[in-house]
């Protein structure tokens, strides 16, 4: 699907940002009243700090302790703990949208920058194409895991 910026200019209807603390699990929903009918819509979400960039002894100890507490893994190897911290552990946030309480899509992919783009009868994978947008749009930020304090995000909704 072509990026909307190549062909069209959408009007930003809503922009919001926030900061998440380490350990938060849950969802934050934003409701946007679409006062006129739109043909195309773009929901753009970005966040930072997806991965650890440094390893500390405290972090290694915490991971090894969690492996023991949760799975009974005794002496989880230190080198594997380092690989886990730098490679696999991640902040995981997804986005879900409803229009007038009907599901219109969810992006469940490991990316820090994502668009839910509905344009010309097509939609980003994970989303269901719509012919028009009017009424109440609700965007829910699904926060599965936050591994670093002060993780920032920005959500914007644009339409034409």
């Amino acid at each position, binding site marked *: 699907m072509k990026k909307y910026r190549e062909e069209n200019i959408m009007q930003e209807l809503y922009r919001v940002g926030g900061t998440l603390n380490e350990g938060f699990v849950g969802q934050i929903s934003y409701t946007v009243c679409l006062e006129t009918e739109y043909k195309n819509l773009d929901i753009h979400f970005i966040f930072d700090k997806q991965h650890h960039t440094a390893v500390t002894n405290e972090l290694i100890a915490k*991971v090894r302790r969690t492996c023991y507490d949760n*799975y009974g893994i005794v002496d989880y190897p230190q080198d594997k703990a380092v690989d886990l911290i730098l490679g696999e552990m991640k902040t995981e946030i997804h986005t879900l949208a409803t229009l007038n309480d009907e599901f219109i899509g969810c992006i469940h992919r490991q990316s820090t920058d994502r668009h839910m783009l509905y344009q010309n009868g097509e939609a980003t994978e994970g989303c269901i194409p719509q012919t028009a947008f009017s009424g109440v749009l609700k965007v829910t930020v699904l926060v599965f895991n936050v591994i670093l304090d002060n993780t920032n995000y920005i959500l914007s909704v644009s339409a034409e």
Partner: protein
Amino acid sequence: MYKRLELHNHTTESDSSLTCQELVAHMLSDSVDAFALTDHNTISGHRKIRAILQETGAPIDCIYGMEYTTYYGHILCLNLEEYVPWENINRHRPELLFAAAKEKGALTGIAHPFSYGDPFARGCRFEMTVTDYSAVDFIEIFNNPEPLHEVNEPGLLLWENLVLKGYRLAATCGMDLHGKWSFTDQYATFIEGEKNGDIASELAEAIHSCRTWVSRGPLLIACFSPEENTLTFSVQKSTKPGFVYPDSYQLVIRTVSGDKTFPLQASGSVRLCADLFGNDRILIPKLYGNTTALEDLYCVSPVITL
């Protein structure tokens, strides 16, 4: 006929590398009878698969579904025609979500209950407190990519223990497919059905009656005759490619009292008097190869209630 199902698959609609088109082709390449579309938290692929199957006339059925991917575990929904919100899930009352999906006609089950979650992959382990397992239709006892002993064995034991307590839970398995992975020597789910039968109805009947087989190839068929008070077991080959069938097997029947093991020839059958099991009324028949180690487990058959 026995239909081979692949009940846990993802596409690029969520986080797989396979498009809907590629998923259909991959399933056809291994002679799968029906596959489920279980993307994470979206049903956007449903209309795409429907269009592909309609346009191509491919000899394969799709079971439309979704994998509810929550903060506290994953729930497979099959025969799910519409999105059911899960975001307000309460980890101490998951029955509410199971019930909401079932109200829409879906079959609901726990996926890979013992996968590793935090700090490996948060949310993958089923950490919800199920108070009433009658809210659950099935448990995925083998999630093929997961480690056999660390993850799948406790899943199998969970299902066995619940069944032996009297819960009516079907067993399923899946590839948890996220790419063009090989099916060889992996477990698949089998159900009874008719050629050109409606797969959604057949699956619902199989799950509700707990008549599912989880097998790498051979199907252990059991027949209980109340009149003669006997049980007869035999082995049938399935259509799943790649399995090397041995000449002999070991039949293991698990009950509350423990396991009983019997030799079973590939071309023969075993006939047992039901009195052999004393007061045990619930039997879990399983088929093994050379040994009764989990590595040699070929098939888990539908539970028999005497």
